[in-house]
């Protein structure tokens, strides 16, 4: 019997987002029509969000293995070894659609969600980073509103929970006007033995839900299943906006980590999309067991919830764990200490079935495999687009403007100006590990031992990690394969500037509707570029997230793969800085730099469409340049190091001057385009001349002016003011 024969089932599964074909597969697999609770569970588990049905096959192309990988993709977060028996777990995730509806809560709960993924694997969160995309702020009050509220939401959650927000990136392009991107990355640390799996184990063990009460949050789409007729008043009871409660999550985090420290849990899992259904079924699937859950045992925020609502509620700040029966009292004791509500809601069985009970009576029964593994995975039909993905826009700077005018316009532009008005809303120092915070270096640097614990032992190296997050939709649009690869190189370049060597990558693939052939092509090309660049640099991908269907009536967003990278440096005391510091230091260019204007910030300000491609890069040269910079920083040969990124070489030099509050005299190599870009390949370093041996010297640090010989001089204070005001001018209550 197929879906077409089931007149009332048919409408429902379609409204729940399942195709007729998928519904047929379900009916075949079950040997019967699913009931309401079952249909609700299946429709969510077979959604794009949970099943990755349009991306899973492509993701298999990513390199996921390496000597430092402790946990690869598949768990809540991947993890790499950083020595001293320590693991670093990290992951980036999108919260785009909720943030477009309610930016403060959407962004806040995005941070809350990614933090739960980190402590679910047993790691204490030690850093948050964010990657944000909005429409053009100058033209769009809505983009300014989204920016302001999303930033406030991220700060609210991260600051209140006591995890430092140490880095991020923000870009503005018209394609994000209706579909902003809010990606959040979290990084955590754990001793190896505390890394925890979510696989449910031990038939007869109990399943315990702890944390916030379960309400009707996020039920939205599935409310077609509600048995009662919907009245307006009922509708108001089905909130789709989830409210973040960082205070609840702080207690949940401390409680979870204490439970793991005391070795009381067999497994641990966070509740995210699709709530209890997804967490419990994935735990069961990974453990190869069955589960039984009684919804009457779930503590509710609203008394009259139906079983399907309880099973798919997306209420925040909840965790699920599996506990041996004799340890339950001790687990409840720890929960009580942290004032975290906990309830035994079910048990692990050997049936391979996910059974849902209401007061002991069966209301749903599904094979775990059907829920978790049997959703069909689709092949895409990639086809290159017939028209350019990025076509340029309004002109803001004359193409024949003099170099100083152009430099000033770039420094003050929304994409390049200082992010200070944003990052001042984030606490970057809580937990006492932050050796480099925003605008001090190209990547954040976090000491592994807490710094203030260091008593006296000043001569020992302090192992540290560096973290960076990057993306560039416009350049990926010019060439998805080369653009995605370039993002990886740029991220690694940021790490090199602090002296760090990359250990692992996480990624968030933000794209449009993959059922459109040209979007499928963008996705496929970008994944190939990403995979290739990771292989080139020997950095495995340990996790990530995919966000598809980022579209508005005007079409898809620019293809926006966002890369988060974690690296290690042997000694935090030698961590690099980006600002020039010592008058008399020479300035050198490191790397093979072949700047071009297609897809660059200057092309954007000129309003020009790309005519060609991104610069062709030599992988060997990139590796050599990164290594030269990394070693120079580690050996303290360089006073400063900064990669040449958006805006080109003059912008990079101006940023070094602004960060250090000191000028420079520069002789630009003949024929070098001062505003062309070639991301991830080249660096500006400064240091005493004997330390820069073998490098092409292009200038000297000193005075209060930036002098570009033969072209212009300008006071650093003037550049600094322009750079500093660019974004605050666009934010309403900026001081």
């Amino acid at each position, binding site marked *: 019997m197929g879906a077409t024969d089931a007149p009332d089932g048919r409408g429902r599964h379609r409204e729940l987002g399942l195709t007729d074909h998928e519904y047929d597969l379900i009916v075949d697999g079950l040997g019967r029509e699913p009931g309401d609770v079952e249909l609700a569970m299946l429709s969510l588990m077979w959604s794009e969000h949970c099943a990755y049905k349009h991306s899973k096959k492509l993701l298999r192309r990513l390199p996921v293995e390496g000597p430092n990988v402790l946990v690869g993709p598949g768990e809540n977060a991947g993890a790499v070894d950083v020595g001293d028996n320590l693991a670093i777990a990290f992951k980036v995730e999108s919260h785009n659609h909720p943030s477009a509806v309610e930016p403060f809560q959407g962004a806040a709960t995005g941070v809350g969600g990614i933090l739960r993924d980190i402590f679910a694997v047993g790691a204490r969160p030690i850093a948050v980073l964010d990657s944000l995309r909005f429409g053009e702020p100058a033209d769009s009050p809505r983009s300014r509103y989204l920016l302001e509220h999303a930033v406030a939401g991220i700060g609210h959650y991260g600051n209140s929970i006591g995890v430092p927000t140490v880095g991020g990136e923000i870009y503005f392009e018209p394609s994000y006007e209706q579909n902003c991107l809010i990606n959040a990355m979290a990084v955590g640390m754990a001793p190896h033995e505390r890394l925890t799996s979510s696989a449910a184990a031990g038939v007869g063990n109990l399943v315990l839900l702890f944390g916030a009460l379960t309400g009707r949050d996020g039920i939205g789409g599935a409310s077609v299943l509600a048995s009662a007729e919907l009245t307006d008043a009922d509708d108001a*009871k089905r*909130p789709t*906006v989830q409210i973040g409660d960082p205070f609840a999550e702080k207690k949940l985090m401390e409680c979870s980590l204490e439970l793991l420290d005391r070795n009381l849990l067999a497994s641990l899992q966070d509740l995210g999309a699709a709530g209890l259904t997804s967490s419990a079924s994935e735990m069961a699937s990974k453990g190869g067991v069955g589960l039984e859950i009684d919804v009457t045992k779930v503590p509710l925020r609203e008394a009259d919830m139906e079983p399907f609502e309880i099973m798919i509620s997306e209420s925040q700040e909840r965790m699920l764990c599996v506990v041996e029966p004799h340890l339950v009292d001790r687990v409840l004791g720890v929960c009580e200490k942290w004032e975290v509500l906990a309830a035994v809601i079910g048990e692990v069985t050997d049936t391979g079935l996910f059974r849902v009970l209401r007061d002991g009576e069966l209301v749903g029964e599904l094979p775990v495999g059907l829920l978790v593994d049997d959703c069909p995975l689709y092949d895409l039909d990639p086809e290159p687009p017939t028209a350019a993905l990025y076509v340029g826009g309004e002109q803001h700077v004359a193409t024949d403007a003099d170099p100083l005018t152009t430099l000033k316009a770039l420094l003050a532009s929304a994409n390049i100006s200082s992010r200070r008005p944003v990052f001042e809303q984030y606490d970057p120092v809580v937990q006492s590990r932050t050796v480099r915070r925003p605008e001090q270096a190209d990547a954040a640097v976090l000491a592994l031992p807490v710094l203030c614990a260091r008593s006296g032992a000043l001569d020992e190296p302090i192992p540290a990690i560096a973290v960076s997050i990057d993306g560039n939709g416009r350049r990926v649009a010019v060439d998805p394969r080369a653009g995605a690869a370039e993002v990886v190189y740029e991220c690694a370049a940021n790490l090199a500037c602090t002296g760090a060597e990359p250990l692992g990558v996480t990624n968030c693939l933000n794209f449009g509707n993959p059922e459109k052939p040209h979007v499928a092509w963008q996705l496929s090309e970008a994944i190939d570029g990403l995979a290739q660049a990771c292989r080139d640099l020997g950095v495995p991908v340990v996790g990530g997230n995919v966000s598809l269907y980022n579209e508005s009536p005007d079409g898809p967003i620019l293809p926006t793969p966002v890369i988060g990278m974690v690296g290690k440096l042997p000694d935090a005391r030698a961590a690099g800085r980006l600002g020039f510091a010592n008058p008399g230091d020479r300035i050198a260019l490191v790397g093979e730099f072949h700047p071009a204007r297609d897809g660059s910030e200057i092309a954007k300000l000129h309003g020009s469409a790309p005519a060609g491609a991104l610069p062709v890069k030599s992988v060997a040269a990139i590796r050599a340049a990164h290594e030269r910079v990394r070693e120079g920083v580690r050996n303290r040969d360089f006073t400063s190091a900064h990669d040449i990124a958006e805006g080109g070489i003059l912008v990079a030099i101006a940023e070094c001057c602004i960060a250090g509050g000191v000028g420079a005299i520069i002789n630009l190599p003949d024929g070098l385009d001062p505003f062309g870009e070639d991301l991830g390949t080249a660096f500006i370093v400064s240091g005493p001349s004997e330390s820069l041996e073998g490098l092409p010297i292009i200038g000297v640090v000193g005075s209060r002016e930036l002098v570009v010989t033969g072209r212009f001089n300008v006071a650093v204070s003037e550049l600094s003011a322009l750079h500093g005001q660019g974004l605050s001018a666009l934010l309403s209550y900026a001081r």
Partner: protein
Amino acid sequence: MRARVLIRPKAGILDPQGQAVERALPALGFTGVSEVHVGRLVELEVQDESQLPAMCERLLANPLIEEYEIQTGHTAAWGERASEEGTAA
């Protein structure tokens, strides 16, 4: 004319502040308190009362997650009234 807008989280929307207050009260010896919700109060002087609902929808409240009530017609300014009703100086 003087108006007040009372804004609170919609029914069904998580209200962490209300929960925190509800849990704190018994510890202070106040019992028998339930269903606590914390919201916002906006007091304003308006010339055109009929604008108030639109103001609420567009700025004062967030209709996605909050509901509001408009009170008009209380004549006393706050300071005066409050002294009757029990503010401590």
